[in-house]
């Protein structure tokens, strides 16, 4: 019998969904708006996060060595730096590579190139680029080099300068923006989702309010609470499923447009590619959210009118 009841509940829910045309349509539209807000927030979070990660990746500490510095000492220093817990990675650029980079950057500057050519030795020293695990850790890495006791006098003498201090203000500013950006994005997401849930909940409540007379009649003819409530929950579930499919389709042209016209603006983030490659994740999140909100709000709203 439970299986028969379930089958009847699903069938009745489907029939009600189809027959309550206008009410179902308006509920699906509101739910679609809710899920669109959610999708928009997810995409915004992706853009924000990727942008922040890009900014983080562009920040590093560069240790410039004096020309002719002893390479085994530099490599020993690199090993010590790699051992620091704050350090994510290091990249050693040799004097030779640094000179090649310099020449490439100034290829059109003949005066500078000619000046280089007349010199007997390479005037450009090597450098060690250090990336921290977290942007807030650059200062402590920089302090490591200021601590001559750690490096020893021999090692300290090979360092020309560390450019963190020069960029300290910028790094601190970026660090502040990153923290606030993440908090603001999260807060915005919560507010938008909460608003959407409230709007959807009230729309479903309104839809069930129109059926309150029918609910009382069902109770009077001897229907149990579950028998009355079940089809409404199925209807709410269907609102969620249909709205999910609509939202997924709607976001195809939207992300396509963003991908085509806004990729440069978003510093290389192609929203269309991201959306297509993550469409199953979007499907799961939207279905869970849509069905959850639809079914729960139907359940709660119908319950209110069951007290007959």
């Amino acid at each position, binding site marked *: 019998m439970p299986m028969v009841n379930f089958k*009847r509940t699903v069938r009745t829910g489907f029939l009600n969904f189809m*027959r309550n045309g206008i009410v179902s349509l308006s509920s699906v539209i509101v739910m679609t708006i809710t899920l669109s807000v959610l999708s928009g927030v997810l995409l915004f979070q992706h853009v924000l996060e990727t942008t922040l990660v890009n900014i983080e990746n562009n920040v590093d500490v560069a240790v410039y060595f004096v020309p002719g510095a002893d390479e085994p000492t530099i490599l020993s220093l690199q090993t010590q730096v790699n051992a620091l817990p704050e350090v994510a990675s290091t990249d050693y650029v040799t004097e030779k590579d640094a000179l090649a980079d310099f020449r490439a950057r100034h290829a059109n500057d003949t005066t500078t190139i000619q000046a280089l050519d007349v010199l007997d030795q390479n005037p450009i020293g090597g450098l060690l680029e250090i990336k921290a695990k977290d942007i807030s850790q650059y200062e402590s890495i920089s302090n490591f080099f200021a601590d001559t006791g750690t490096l020893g006098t021999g090692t300290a003498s090979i360092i020309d300068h560390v450019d963190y201090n020069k960029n300290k203000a910028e790094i601190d500013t970026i660090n502040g923006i990153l923290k606030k950006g993440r908090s603001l994005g999260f807060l915005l997401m919560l507010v938008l989702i909460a608003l959407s849930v409230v709007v959807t909940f009230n729309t479903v409540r309104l839809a069930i309010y129109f059926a309150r007379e029918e609910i009382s009649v069902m109770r*009077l*003819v*001897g229907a149990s609470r579950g028998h009355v409530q079940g089809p409404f929950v199925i209807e709410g579930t269907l609102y969620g499923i249909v709205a999910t499919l609509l939202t997924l389709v709607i976001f195809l042209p939207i992300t396509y447009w963003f991908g085509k016209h806004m990729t440069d603006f978003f510093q290389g983030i192609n929203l269309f590619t991201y959306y297509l490659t993550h469409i199953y994740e979007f499907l799961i999140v939207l279905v869970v959210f849509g069905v959850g909100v639809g079914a729960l709000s139907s359940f709660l709203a119908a319950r209110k009118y069951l007290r007959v």
Partner: protein
Amino acid sequence: MIYFNSVKKEYPKDTVALEDITLSINAGEFVSIVGHSGAGKTTLIKLILAEESPSEGTVFFESLDVNRLKNRQLTELRRRIGTVFQDFKLLGNKTAYENISFAMEASGKTDEEIAADVPHVLDLVGLLEKREHFPGQLSGGEKQRLAIARAIINQPEVIIADEPTGNLDPINTYEIVQILKKINDLGTTIILTTHNRGVVDSIGKRVITLEKGKVIRDDKDGRYMI
């Protein structure tokens, strides 16, 4: 079968709908409850169905105090009572067939039982050809016949008909009364509220007269007298 013991029903602002009601209705009876609008007829019905609870006194259905029933027991009680209302109270987004099958599903009948009984009862009230019609596509008389079909489908012990002919023309009124009499002849208790003199007189059975919330007359072979 149904017993009112010193029942009083008071609504807010000191409006007394029923007062000092003590009466019993036996199995198989056809009882007409008459009185002017506002006399308390519908309140009496709502008390039997436990839609309302009395301010004082108790209402019994057999040995059950209807206002002390748990949710599941109340659902089971209502399955033993068929209801017909003046405004039909049909399910607007279900067809005639589905309105009746819903009541059967609610009482746990199998698909086979539903498939066998629903056409039969639709035929009984002359609506077999309109089985796929929605209530909005039926006339007043047809709606009331459908409501009666729904009320009797689970073979209840009692049928409560609250002003069932209030919205009907004389021909449909006559048809509905004949159907109710036929159901009563088969052993089902009928409780009918009405203020239609012709209906009450044509039935010629027990009449309880209410006035301002009190029973002023209870005649075994009564006529409409107010």
